[in-house]
């Protein structure tokens, strides 16, 4: 039982990261029906940004500022990627945009290698990692911070999407672009906003990922990016709540596999899960198969 709870906490930690990254996949898919394969690279750049803000300035920025600045620059990067690479393809066949996204992913990996080199940076801890004891369990402060901040930002996102005018406009655009235009909604701006939010949350996931595994390198976004994508599909692509649930489930499945089966089986099981979902419930947990009403 103790092992189980310990692994559950680890699962929530990893799951938080996957959930944050999965939200970006699902929001972008929801709004322009594109699987943004470059999202894992946003995560990677987010981690590099945090490294630069934390260690290359002559003074020490507070941790929260490091996070906020990195998220901000990742948001700008996300907007830039959409404007440069995807905007022109909005009316093109979806496969064109998908191939472009894969190209963008590779481009960003190599850009990072050009700028930062291929040698991994060691991410020194940005926060106090001494464990805290809760109900006789020693839990790392980093784990608590990861879970806590992730949930905080997810609540913030939900409030934004469901309670504010731009949030509602974002949902309107994802449901019917043409009608949204007729309402006077500037669809280009809403799409930029979607990329900005998704990228900022992806960067946060990247920073936590880098802190958990202590390393930053140009291809670090590939595997967690893919797993977060699976989480988004698992939860129902296009659904923000689904991405959160999917992220936590994948995180927990992964750590439980490590603990009770074997760490060698982790990727087999997670990617196998993708195949199973696509075979039996391609719409995911919260996804909808709506029939058009005439």
């Amino acid at each position, binding site marked *: 039982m103790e092992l189980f709870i310990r692994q559950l906490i680890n699962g929530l930690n990893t799951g938080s990261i996957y959930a944050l990254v999965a939200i970006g996949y699902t929001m972008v898919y929801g709004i322009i029906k594109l699987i943004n394969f470059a999202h894992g690279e946003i995560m990677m750049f987010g981690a590099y940004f945090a490294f630069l803000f934390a260690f290359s300035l002559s003074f020490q920025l507070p941790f929260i500022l490091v996070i906020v600045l990195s998220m901000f620059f990742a948001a700008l990067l996300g907007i830039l990627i959409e404007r440069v690479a995807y905007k022109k393809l909005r009316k093109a066949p979806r496969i064109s945009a998908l191939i472009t996204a894969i190209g963008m992913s590779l481009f960003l990996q190599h850009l990072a290698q050009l700028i930062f080199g291929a040698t991994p940076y060691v991410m020194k801890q940005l926060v106090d990692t001494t464990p805290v004891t809760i109900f006789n369990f020693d839990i790392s402060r980093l784990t608590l911070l990861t879970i806590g901040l992730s949930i905080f930002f997810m609540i913030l996102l939900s409030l934004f999407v469901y309670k504010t005018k731009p949030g*509602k406009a974002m949902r*309107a655009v994802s449901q019917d672009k043409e*009608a949204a*235009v*007729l309402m006077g*909604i500037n669809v280009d701006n809403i799409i930029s906003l979607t990329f900005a939010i998704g990228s900022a949350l992806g960067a946060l996931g990247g920073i936590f990922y880098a802190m958990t595994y202590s390393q930053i390198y140009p291809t670090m976004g590939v595997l967690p990016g893919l797993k977060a994508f699976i989480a988004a599909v698992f939860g129902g692509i296009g659904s923000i709540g689904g991405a959160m649930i999917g992220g936590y489930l994948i995180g927990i499945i992964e750590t439980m596999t490590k603990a009770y089966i074997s760490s060698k089986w982790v990727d087999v099981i997670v990617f196998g899960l993708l195949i199973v979902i696509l075979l039996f419930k391609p719409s995911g947990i919260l996804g909808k198969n*709506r029939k058009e*009403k*005439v």
Partner: protein
Amino acid sequence: MLKVDNLHVHYGVIHAIKGVSFEVNEGEIVTLIGSNGAGKTTILKAISQLLEKSDGDITFLDKSLSDYKAHDVVHIGVSHVPEGRHVFPDLTVLENLEMGAYYRKDKTKIREDLYKVFYRFPRLKERVSQIAGTLSGGEQQMLAIGRALMSHPKILLLDEPSMGLAPILVKEIFDIIKEINAAGTTILLVEQNANQALHISDKAYVLETGNITLSGPSKELLNDEKVKAAYLSA
């Protein structure tokens, strides 16, 4: 108020609208009738800038509409209810109506207009927190019209509001259109249901494969032999 002059629209190589001219005066209900594929929807989309014209002029209150982006057209008082209703299926009725007033900032006036919409469509008030995709076809049409009214338009472009509705609802929708007009909104109505459209409108234009072949006061067109044979026989 709205003037379309020698409008041409192409879809790729297809010449869909071939030099259409017509005018809508303030306070009128003007209808464009014609069969499927005649180009009625294309004309409305060209007015609201969803489609780019290839030639001609569209002016509204002496402003050229092609100077505006599609999402800015609603700012100057043109509101378009698209064919097939296009309500936001996963938003609630209230959220749909809020989106109709998206560009407006005058909160008290928005609230007034919301009450007006509820007064006109009591069924929307009953279903205010229901998800729009679960409404019936008639209710969705009411929502689409209500949503368009939330922008406080000077002119309402209605594209096939009676499509797919039961006859009793068709009558209700046309009554509502008349009421909206009586309350001061100019209306450009596109319809396949020529009989009803001619009965409530002041002026009508008959569209055939991208050309206007006949026009005049609706009462006269109702008695026109050609119109009777082609559009009122059923």
